[in-house]
Structure formats: structure tokens, C-alpha cells
């Protein structure tokens, strides 16, 4: 007998419902010997592409449908039909695409989302009927009463409910209405062994056969195995936002799993009461329905046909091939590459011909035209726009103005971007100003119309914190407790929860290892990776033609953009072209800086045409003064640029390529630096390899070099070489490439030892190289940001502070501005703006040497928006109402809320207006103080009766006697600045501890270079950044940067000291640390930390018990690690290329601690004051 076919299967892409991924379901179906499998996810086709691929891989035929909410059922009049029976659960139907119905199904899903609220799609019988018989959309004209959809009416449908409620007349009437509306309706019977399930199924079967309607058997699958039902229960509760209770679970039994044929035979016998003929008829009809719905995988996923994928391309309106050729010709002239006889022109002509040949062969001319139109459109809006990624390697992109990087000048290759051997579609990525990204999307939609454009979506999946939140809520834990538990965890995968509890010192002692939480953690781990929410992808835009809606279902995003239900991988597999339009904050920051320069100095600067060889700019970079600059501001990069000393754009490209986990850890940096500075002769395996390797002194840094080396040695051509390069990432791939490379290279006449040496170079670095085109695209904004910093420091910092592009919090940038000589101007109601403003200030003091004076003559004004809790409307009113004559005037016209007004007074926003100054003496009889003014805010508030019930008569104002209250001390003023603005504006916070720090003999940053290597010293400062990056040893190493107002101090905490330091490092802001001096370069020092303390603890100890008590604490030896093991546990992750990584690298501390919200000291400000890395930038582990 033919195998059973599951026609109703939900995967994990049924959000907060399904539990199994499409691939696992297809694999299980194949193991059960099934030849077909349907995927019918709830509310969308989110998993459809993955299902079709998985079925194709497993050699089974895919069927795709959707499980949708049904509303406004047929109006059937039978006695008693008025009342809505049963529980409040919505009715659901399953709609399958018939073999020619994929486009119709896509359109139906789009229509369902258009009908419903966001996230709550539904259909009515009319919508289904319109689509099924082709009166809606593209189906029109098929005629003949044929149907492209099959509707399954199961136990959750209106018909099924009526049967379960024993209202047989109503059920009959409903089924009759369905049958006359939709040509292909079948009844779906299901028995999950629940109470009365089998009874309902038997009666539904009876109803179907009595009316001559076919019936199918399904298992309403949502689990792979019966044991998954607990996860299902949790998801049911999480979806409904209620605690677990038998009333809240969809399936009271564990039977909704992908049963095999034998188990389904038992089910069918139960339903048919042992009647074998009936059973055979039911199974036979199930198969017939399935066969009508068999889909051709290649039609849905064109890229399964690698040879000749059918792509979905935008319409240009004319033949795109000559159009692109013409545009490229124009480009040659515009870029100065059309001078007859010049070598560059000849190069360009040859390259252009080769690129066009590939583009035309792949029929992608229209794509390039469209992308160029879009980048023109974006620039015409005045939005900064730069190409990124491998697309910078294409001359066509340069010529038609998509990008501004000349690939010939930098030796970039097109093959890295688009080659004959490359499967899939090219990806052009452009960076735009982050603040204008959505404007760009709107413009694209406006230009190409809603029907041909959609944004790409992405699935947010369960991770440790979200899983704990949902499971905790389902288990009925109090919300406050859930919050504390979830925030205690770092950003790890949900599957790592229990491992993290035992591995991380700061969690081991947290008391979360309690047995009572065991079930919560166990279940939370089971949610690992399940999709929970669909969101707009940060950059992908699909550009198609008017039939795009036949290829992908579309829903509305949160911001009301049309959004495909497919993610970026699905989109590519489906043969749809996308353009990545990424919002980059640095582009916004630079655009802002340029506007500030124009506003303050009246100079209009075209940043794209400033000289790219400015000596002063490179001097700034070479000395590591790169805080705030794009890509090169991290502690590690500051160290690298100081060692590498870039002098040209090319040096910057190399620098960016080298600063990646792979090159840093496989030690490519050292041989490069040695050869660059002439300590070592560059090593070329063969004279012929000198040319490709010369730019990096014999070290392979770029993908492009790998391609050239392979090509030179084997003569295989760059396209083939690109294929080989991609294979170098895994050990198996390297073996295969070696087996191919060595004989070919020997055959080309290279000596065995040369081949061996060349292979060693490829083997060591090939997998780690970086795409030079990508680095070149990055190097331009890097240089531009450094140029702005060097020549227009105040405007540059205004942009950086306003758009926050970098890794550092505002107070660090502000301190850098201060060190560059920029005056920091306090909040002032008459001078502050909505955002950070540059101002001219009298250039005071002597002229400084070095870079300390680059910002002199300018100030930075703290804006209203920096005030904690201020609303946009308040900011607008405050800026619009300037100038103000008094607090009362400000209060009256700008109408800020009382707490905001109080905060503005507390940080000195009215100092200038009322002639106030914080500091000694605190008691100033007859003189107004900030505190008096705050009291006056209260009086104004009461007088205006705003927000209070007991209104005072008009005209009455309380009199505040000047000097009645004491003035704030300087320390209090800085404390208020930290709490309200998140930064110490008037002076550096560490200054208040100078006395203690001097008493215990702390070394300051500026004196570090004078300490000998190996010396054990004390340092102190405010924490600027903590990072736990990938390092070679596979340890979790904590890198912390402190700032003590004289410069940065870099500390390294190895695992051996983390047992007694991790909690303090992550949990405190002002730190004292003991460490050993390590000289890392001529001008670079870092400390290997031994111990650390919270400065505020020491400060209190000092005040209460004196300096000896502090000294005693500082000289205490750390407690020996307990038997449970010190430091960080966890097996390190081994990557295919042999590179090891701690499972907690790049993850670091518990986020609550990290974001400065979880502070142990009430006097520490509750704002984010330092940077901590999150997310991983390491290579992805090979899938093995």
C-alpha cells in the first residue's frame, strides 16, 4: 500500500506554535518512507522555501499550504445558529496550493495579512473563494471552474466546530456553502486521542460521505516527537500571555507528532471503527488530494536549478543590455578613462568587456541599471550613500556611479563579486545615513510602486533571555523575578543556559542554580533557536517586477513597510534580487558634521572630493588619536594603527583587513609589520608571485591575492580560483583544494618546493583573508571621518555625539573632545539646541603641540536632548522659544514638565541666565542658588496648577527667598551631570578621588610609559569599555579600558584571575586595579591585571577606617579558587580552520551589569556609561 502523506504540518515557522524545523520534518518523513510532505504553517509561508529545499534534498515531493484564521463564516440559517458556540478560539482552515497554485497561495496569504491587523491575519470564505476560482489577482482568466487551491475543513474549522457541538444541521449547511463557493473543498478528519476526538472525526467523516465530499486524514502535526509536547504547551501559554493551565493548551495530548504509517493506520481504524473499506477509501482520498497539490520544487526555488536559474528581474522599460553598455561608455568618459592610447583606458576597456560579458550571460544588465537608478535617487535626496562589500570590486559599479571606489586603482577583482562559477546572485550593498534609511525605502517604494518592491524580513529567535522570560511567565513566576533572572544572563543562546550557569564565575555565585528553577531552565533550553517574531531586516530591499506578489507573500512591517515573509536566504533561493540599503550611523554623523561646518563657519565641504593624502590626517591616525573615527577607534585598532603607521589609503585598507579575529590570531600581523618596517625581507615563494603579493610584503591579506596566487600557479582563471578560495574555509575543502592545486601547479612548471611553499601560504592564510573590495569600501569613510576629526574637530564630535556611530558612550567622546582642545559648554536654555551644536569660542591659552590643540577655538554645546527623560516635543518647544528672560519665562513658553525643568536647573541650564555657579561657599545669603531655583520650579508648577488637583488662584506665586537653600558643591554638580546627562561635563569624575589615589600611589595613564616592563602597579579610572573578544587560546579574556582623565589604560584579565575579579570588573564603574606592566610596542603599554576593586568601596573604607584599612585590602592575596574550579568553564568551540574560541567570547558579562543598570552602588549613575561588545564577529563554525 502507498505510504501515508501528512497534509497538515506546522513547523517552527508557525510562530510560538510549531516546534520542529522544516528540514527535521522532511528528514523524518523520508525516514518513514513517505514520498510527499505538506508544510502548512500558521499565518504565513515563512518556512515554505526551506521546506521545498528540504524536500528536494530528501527526494520527496513538497506540498505547501497555510493554516489561516477564518472569520465571518458563511451566513447559514439553521435553528440555533445565532449563538457562537464553543470556546473563544478562532476557527481555522488549511488552504493548500494545487500544483499550479503557488502564486495564488502567495496572493491569498498577502490578502489575509491585508485584511487583518498586523500579526493577526484572517480570511473570510469570500476571500478564499475569490482566490481559489481566480477572480482575484493573477488567477483571473483560468476559467472552467478549475481551482488553484484546495481547502481543508478540519476540526478547528466552522464545520468541525459545529460537528463537535453536535449541531449537525448547521455543519451540513456550512459544508454545503463551502462546497458551492470553492470548487475543491475536502473535509479533514483528525484524531489526537483527546476526549471525544475520535467521535468528532467519525461524525465528520460520516457528514462528508453523506454529502459526497471527499475526506482526508491528517494528524495536525506540530511536533517531531511526542516528547516535544511540553514545549508546545509552553508556546501555547506564551502566545496567549497566560500561565500554563489545561484550558490554555491547544493539545491536551502528546499525539500531534509526525507519526509513521503504522501509527496512522491505528488512527484510521479508530475513526473508521474497524471498517477496512472505509479506512482504505479515506487513505486513498488523502493520497489523491496530495497528488493534486504536488509542487515542482524548481518552480518555487529556481536556484535549485544551478545551471539556468529563472530569475525574477525588474522591468526597465527598454532592452537593458544596450542601455547598460551606453551607461558604461558614459561612465568611462566621466571617470576620465576614455583617453585613446592611455594604458589605464586600455585596462579599463578590457576589464569592462570582461565584466559585461558575465553580466550579460547571466542576464543581469537590468539589475545593475536598477541599482544605479536607486543610488542616483538616494543621492538626489541629499543623502550620503557609499558602496560597501564585494560590489566595490566591479568596474561597472564604478562607471555607472553605484560606488565611488575605483577597482583598477586598488587592484580589486570582479570575480569576488560576480563570476561565472559563482552560484547565486550578486549582492550589491550600499551604506546610507542611518537617520535617512527609511526615507530611502519610502523613495524606492515611491519610484517602483508597491507591487514590485518589498523589504526583506528576518526571524528573531529565542535566545537565553527571551526563552527564560516566556517560560517563566508560562510557569507563573512573578514578573519581577523573571526580569531579574533573565537579565542575569549574558547574550547567549538559549541552549547554553545551564552551561553558562556553571561556567561563568559571575553566575555561579548568583544563587540562580536553585533547584526550583531547574524546570524553567530545562524548558527554556528547549526553545533554543525557535522563531518568535518576524521583523524588518536591517537592510534588504527586494526589487522585482509587477509579478513580485506571485513569488512571495507580503505583510506589513511594524513601520508599515511591505515586507516579504521570506528571509534573506529564502529570497536569494527564490531567485529574487535584493539590494542591501544599510543605515550607517557614521554616514549620518558625517553629514551632520558637514552641516555644522557650514552653519558655523560658512564653509561648504564636498567630503568625497577632499584630498585623500592629507598628511595631518594620517598623523592623527598614526598616533592612535582615533577615538570616534569609523572602524579604527577600538583599543585593539588604536594599538594596531599605532604600530602600522598608515600613510596612504592603501595602508588603511590593509589595516582594516588585518584587524579581524582570523588574521590577529593566526599571527599574520607580525610578519606583515616586520616586513613593512623593514625588519625582515619579504618572502616570495616564487618570482611570479611577487606581483600579487608585493602590496602586502609577501603576506596574503586579501581574498583577491588568494585568487591571483591560485591563478598564477595553476592558470585556471580567476573564476575557478574564486571557487577554490571558497573551499579553503573547511579542513575537507582544504584537502580537496590541495589535491587539485598541487598537481596542477607542478604541471604548470613550478618546482615541488615552490608549490609546497605557495600551498603553505594559502593553507595558513587563505581561510582568513579579507575581501579587499570590502576593506576599500570601508577605508573611505574611515579616512573621511579622521579628516573631519583633524580639521573640524568640534563639528565632528557634534556629529558623533548626535548620531552615536561608535562603540563608546557619550562621556568618553566628550572627554576626547576635551583632550583635543574643544571647549565643553554646559547646557544653557538660551544656547543649547535639540542636538549637539558646535560654537565658536575665544581661543584661549597657549598653543599646544601635537593634537591637543586641533579643536581650539571651538566649543561643543550640550543639547536639550541629552537630558534624561525629555520628550521630542519638549526639545522642539525649548529650542523654538529661545531666547528666554527667566526661569518663569522658560517655564511659561517652553512648557517643559516639572521633572525635566528640575533636571535642567540641576545641570546648570539656567546658570547663565540667573548668574549661578556651583561650588564653595555653599551658603550664600541673598544670592540665588540652583537649589533655590529648583524650589521655584515647584512653586511655578503649583501656581500653574499643572497636573495637580488643588489648583491655586491665578496670579499667586510663592516667594522663594534667594540663598535660602545651599548651592550644589562641584562634586554634586558632576554627580547630577552623570545622572541626568550621562556624562561628566564640568570636570572629570575621577578628579574627586585624587587624594585617595595619590595616597595609595596610583600610576596615571600619562606616566605609564615611564614604568618598567614587569613592574606591579596600581591604576584607577572610570571604565570606558569592556570586551571579551575571540582570542587564540580559546580562553574568555576580558579586556577593559579605564580612563583617568590623562588618557586610557588598557587592562587584560585572564581566566586565572576572573574568579575573584569578574564580578567587580563587570559590576563596577570606577575601578582600582593592580596589574603587571607589559610593553606591547614603542608607544604602547598594557597591564596584565591581578586584582581589582570598586573605587567607591575603597573610598568608603578610607573615610570610615582610614588609609591603613585601604592598604590592608589592597595587599590581601585573593582567596584561592574553590574546588569547583576557578575561572571560566565551558568547552572551547573549535572552528574548522583550527581556530579555537571560548563559548563566551564576545559575549561577556550579564547584560544588566553591562548596561550599567544593575549597579551595586546606589550612588553610581543609572545610565550607560561604558561600552561593552555584544554579538560575535568571529568566523562561523563549520556545520559539522
Amino acid at each position, binding site marked *: 500500500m502507498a505510504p501515508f502523506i501528512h497534509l497538515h504540518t506546522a513547523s517552527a515557522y508557525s510562530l510560538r506554535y510549531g516546534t520542529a524545523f522544516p528540514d527535521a520534518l522532511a528528514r523524518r518523513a523520508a525516514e518513514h518512507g513517505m514520498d510527499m510532505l505538506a508544510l502548512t504553517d500558521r499565518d504565513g509561508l515563512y518556512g515554505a522555501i526551506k521546506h521545498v529545499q528540504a524536500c528536494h534534498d530528501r527526494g520527496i515531493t513538497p506540498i505547501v499550504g497555510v493554516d489561516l484564521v477564518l472569520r465571518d463564516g458563511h451566513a447559514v440559517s439553521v435553528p440555533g445558529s445565532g449563538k457562537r458556540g464553543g470556546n473563544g478560539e478562532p476557527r481555522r482552515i488549511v488552504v493548500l496550493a494545487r500544483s499550479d497554485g503557488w502564486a495564488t497561495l502567495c496572493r491569498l496569504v498577502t490578502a489575509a495579512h491585508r485584511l487583518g491587523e498586523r500579526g493577526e491575519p484572517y480570511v473570510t470564505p469570500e476571500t478564499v473563494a475569490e482566490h481559489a476560482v481566480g477572480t482575484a489577482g493573477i488567477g483571473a482568466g483560468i476559467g472552467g471552474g478549475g481551482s488553484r487551491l484546495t481547502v481543508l475543513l478540519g476540526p478547528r474549522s466552522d464545520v468541525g466546530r459545529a460537528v463537535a457541538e453536535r449541531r449537525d444541521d448547521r455543519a451540513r449547511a456550512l459544508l454545503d456553502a463551502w462546497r458551492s463557493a470553492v470548487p475543491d473543498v475536502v473535509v479533514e478528519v483528525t484524531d489526537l*486521542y*483527546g*476526549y*471525544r476526538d475520535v467521535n468528532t472525526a467519525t461524525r465528520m467523516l460520516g457528514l462528508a460521505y453523506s454529502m459526497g465530499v471527499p475526506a482526508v486524514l491528517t494528524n495536525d502535526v506540530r511536533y517531531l516527537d511526542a516528547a516535544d*509536547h511540553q514545549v508546545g504547551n509552553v508556546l501555547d501559554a506564551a502566545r496567549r500571555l497566560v500561565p500554563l493551565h*489545561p484550558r490554555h493548551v491547544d493539545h*491536551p*495530548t*502528546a*499525539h500531534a507528532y509526525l507519526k509513521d504509517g503504522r501509527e496512522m493506520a491505528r488512527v484510521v481504524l479508530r475513526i473508521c471503527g474497524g471498517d477496512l473499506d472505509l479506512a482504505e477509501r479515506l487513505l486513498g482520498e488523502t493520497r489523491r488530494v496530495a497528488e493534486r497539490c504536488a509542487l515542482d520544487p524548481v518552480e518555487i526555488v529556481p536556484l535549485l536549478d544551478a545551471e539556468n536559474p529563472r530569475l525574477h528581474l525588474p522591468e526597465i522599460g527598454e532592452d537593458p543590455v544596450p542601455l547598460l553598455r551606453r551607461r558604461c561608455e558614459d561612465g568611462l568618459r566621466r571617470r576620465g578613462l576614455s583617453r585613446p592610447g592611455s594604458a589605464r583606458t586600455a585596462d579599463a576597456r578590457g576589464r569592462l568587456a570582461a565584466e559585461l560579458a558575465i553580466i550579460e550571460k547571466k542576464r543581469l544588465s537590468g539589475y545593475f541599471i536598477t541599482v544605479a537608478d536607486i543610488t542616483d535617487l538616494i543621492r538626489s535626496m541629499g543623502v550620503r550613500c557609499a558602496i560597501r562589500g564585494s560590489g566595490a570590486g566591479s568596474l561597472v559599479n564604478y562607471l555607472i556611479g553605484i560606488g565611488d571606489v575605483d577597482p583598477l586603482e586598488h587592484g580589486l577583482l570582479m570575480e569576488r563579486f560576480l563570476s561565472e562559477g559563482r552560484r547565486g546572485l550578486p549582492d550589491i550593498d550600499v551604506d546610507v545615513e542611518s537617520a535617512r534609511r527609511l526615507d530611502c525605502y519610502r523613495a524606492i517604494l515611491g519610484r517602483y510602486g508597491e507591487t514590485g518592491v518589498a523589504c526583506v524580513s528576518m526571524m528573531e529567535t529565542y535566545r537565553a533571555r527571551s526563552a527564560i522570560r516566556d517560560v517563566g511567565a508560562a510557569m507563573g513566576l512573578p514578573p519581577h523575578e523573571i526580569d531579574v533572572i533573565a537579565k542575569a544572563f549574558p547574550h547567549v543562546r538559549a541552549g547554553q543556559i545551564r552551561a553558562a550557569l556553571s561556567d561563568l564565575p559571575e553566575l555561579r555565585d548568583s544563587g540562580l542554580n536553585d533547584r526550583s528553577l531547574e524546570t524553567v531552565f530545562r524548558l527554556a533550553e528547549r526553545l533554543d533557536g525557535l522563531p518568535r517574531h518576524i521583523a524588518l531586516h536591517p537592510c534588504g530591499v527586494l526589487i522585482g517586477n509587477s509579478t513580485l506578489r506571485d513569488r512571495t507573500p507580503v505583510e506589513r512591517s511594524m513601520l508599515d513597510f511591505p515586507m516579504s515573509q521570506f528571509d534573506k536566504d529564502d529570497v536569494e533561493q527564490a531567485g529574487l534580487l535584493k539590494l542591501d540599503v544599510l543605515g550607517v550611523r557614521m554616514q549620518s554623523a558625517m553629514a551632520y558634521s558637514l552641516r555644522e561646518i557650514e552653519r558655523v563657519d560658512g564653509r561648504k565641504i564636498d567630503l568625497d572630493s577632499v584630498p585623500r593624502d592629507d598628511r595631518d590626517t594620517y598623523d592623527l591616525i598614526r598616533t592612535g588619536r582615533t577615538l570616534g573615527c569609523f572602524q579604527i577607534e577600538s583599543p585593539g585598532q588604536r594599538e594596531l594603527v599605532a604600530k602600522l603607521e598608515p600613510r596612504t589609503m592603501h595602508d588603511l585598507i590593509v589595516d582594516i583587513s588585518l584587524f579581524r579575529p582570523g588574521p590577529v590570531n593566526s599571527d599574520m600581523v607580525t610578519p606583515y609589520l616586520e616586513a613593512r618596517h623593514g625588519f625582515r625581507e619579504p618572502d616570495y615563494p616564487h618570482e611570479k608571485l611577487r606581483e600579487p603579493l608585493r602590496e602586502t610584503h609577501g603576506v596574503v591579506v586579501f581574498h583577491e591575492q588568494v585568487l591571483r596566487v591560485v591563478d598564477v600557479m595553476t592558470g585556471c582563471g580567476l573564476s575557478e580560483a574564486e571557487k577554490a578560495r571558497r573551499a579553503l574555509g573547511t579542513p575537507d575543502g582544504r584537502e580537496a583544494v590541495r589535491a587539485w592545486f598541487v598537481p596542477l601547479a607542478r604541471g604548470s612548471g613550478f618546482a615541488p618546493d615552490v608549490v609546497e611553499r605557495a600551498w603553505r601560504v594559502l593553507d595558513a592564510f587563505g581561510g582568513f583573508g579579507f575581501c579587499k573590495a570590502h576593506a576599500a569600501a570601508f577605508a573611505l569613510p574611515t579616512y573621511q571621518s579622521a579628516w573631519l576629526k583633524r580639521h573640524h574637530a568640534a563639528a565632528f564630535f557634534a556629529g558623533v555625539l548626535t548620531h552615536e556611530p561608535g562603540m563608546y558612550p557619550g562621556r568618553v567622546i566628550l572627554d576626547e573632545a576635551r583632550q583635543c582642545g574643544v571647549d565643553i559648554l554646559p547646557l544653557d536654555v538660551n544656547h543649547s539646541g535639540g542636538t549637539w551644536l558646535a560654537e565658536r569660542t575665544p581661543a584661549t591659552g597657549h598653543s599646544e603641540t601635537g593634537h591637543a590643540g586641533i579643536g581650539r577655538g571651538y566649543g561643543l554645546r550640550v543639547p536639550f536632548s541629552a537630558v534624561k527623560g525629555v520628550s521630542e516635543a519638549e526639545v522642539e518647544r525649548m529650542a523654538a522659544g529661545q531666547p528666554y528672560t527667566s526661569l518663569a519665562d522658560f517655564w511659561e513658553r517652553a512648557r517643559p514638565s516639572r521633572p525635566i525643568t528640575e533636571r535642567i536647573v540641576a545641570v546648570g541650564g539656567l546658570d547663565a541666565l540667573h548668574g549661578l555657579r556651583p561650588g564653595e561657599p555653599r551658603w550664600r545669603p541673598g544670592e540665588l542658588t540652583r537649589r533655590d531655583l529648583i524650589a521655584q520650579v515647584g512653586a511655578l508648577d503649583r501656581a500653574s496648577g499643572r497636573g495637580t488637583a488643588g489648583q491655586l488662584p491665578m496670579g499667586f506665586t510663592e516667594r522663594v527667598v534667594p540663598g535660602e537653600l545651599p548651592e550644589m558643591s562641584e562634586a554634586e554638580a558632576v554627580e547630577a551631570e552623570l545622572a541626568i546627562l550621562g556624562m561628566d561635563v564640568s570636570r572629570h569624575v575621577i578628579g574627586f578621588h585624587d587624594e585617595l589615589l595619590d595616597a595609595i600611589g596610583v600610576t596615571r595613564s600619562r606616566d605609564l610609559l615611564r614604568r618598567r616592563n614587569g613592574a606591579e602597579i596600581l591604576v584607577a579610572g572610570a571604565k570606558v569599555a569592556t570586551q571579551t573578544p575571540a582570542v587564540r587560546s580559546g580562553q574568555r579574556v576580558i579586556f577593559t579600558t579605564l580612563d583617568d582623565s590623562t588618557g586610557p589604560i588598557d587592562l587584560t584579565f585572564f581566566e586565572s584571575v576572573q574568579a575573584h575579579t569578574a564580578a567587580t570588573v563587570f559590576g563596577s564603574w570606577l575601578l582600582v586595579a593592580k596589574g603587571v606592566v607589559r610593553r606591547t610596542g614603542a608607544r604602547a603599554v598594557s597591564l596584565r591585571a591581578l586584582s581589582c576593586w570598586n573605587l567607591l568601596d575603597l573610598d568608603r573604607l578610607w573615610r570610615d577606617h582610614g588609609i591603613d584599612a585601604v592598604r590592608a585590602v589592597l595587599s590581601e592575596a585573593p582567596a584561592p579558587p574553590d574546588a569547583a574550579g576557578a575561572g571560566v568553564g565551558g568547552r572551547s568551540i573549535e572552528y574548522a580552520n583550527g581556530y579555537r574560541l571560548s563559548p563566551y567570547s564576545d559575549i561577556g558579562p550579564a547584560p544588566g551589569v553591562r548596561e550599567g543598570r544593575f549597579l551595586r552602588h546606589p550612588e553610581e549613575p543609572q545610565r550607560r556609561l561604558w561600552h561593552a561588545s555584544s554579538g560575535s564577529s568571529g568566523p562561523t563554525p563549520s556545520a559539522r
Partner: protein
Amino acid sequence: MSKLYGDPIEVWSRGGQPVQFVWRDRLYTIREVQDHWVVAREWWKTSDNDPGERRFWRVAAATGREVGTYELRFDTAGGVWLLLRAWD
């Protein structure tokens, strides 16, 4: 009307189906299974990882000439059979 009992009973099964049981010292032979369903236990209320499920059978059974309807329950975790109700 049914009567509620909840008495532990001894049951003989064949092929996963109960065929005979002893209740209050009398042997009952099952003539027909009228209904069978399962209910998963409320695992979130227990500390067990998997408290199993409860399987219910509604059967027509005879002892001698008297035929009645009985509801039997099997607890997979404890391996215990109960006679829940009787219509006799």
C-alpha cells in the same frame, strides 16, 4: 447515572487494549471498547521531567450475565489502573 469510584483494579491487556479486569473480587470481561482517549498530565505542577499521561477507556464489560459500562484509567507514570466510574 454513573457512580464514581476510583478503586485500584487489576487489568489484563492484549495488544495495548484492556480485555479483563478484577474489581471488588469479581472478574469482568470486556465486550466492547466504546471510547478511548488520553490526557497528558499537568507536568508543570510536578517536579518530574515527564509525569506521563492518563489513558482512559470506556468499555462495556460483563461479569456473568450482568453487562455494564465502566470507565478505566491507566496512569503511565505509576503503572496503576483505576476504575473511575460505573454505569451498572
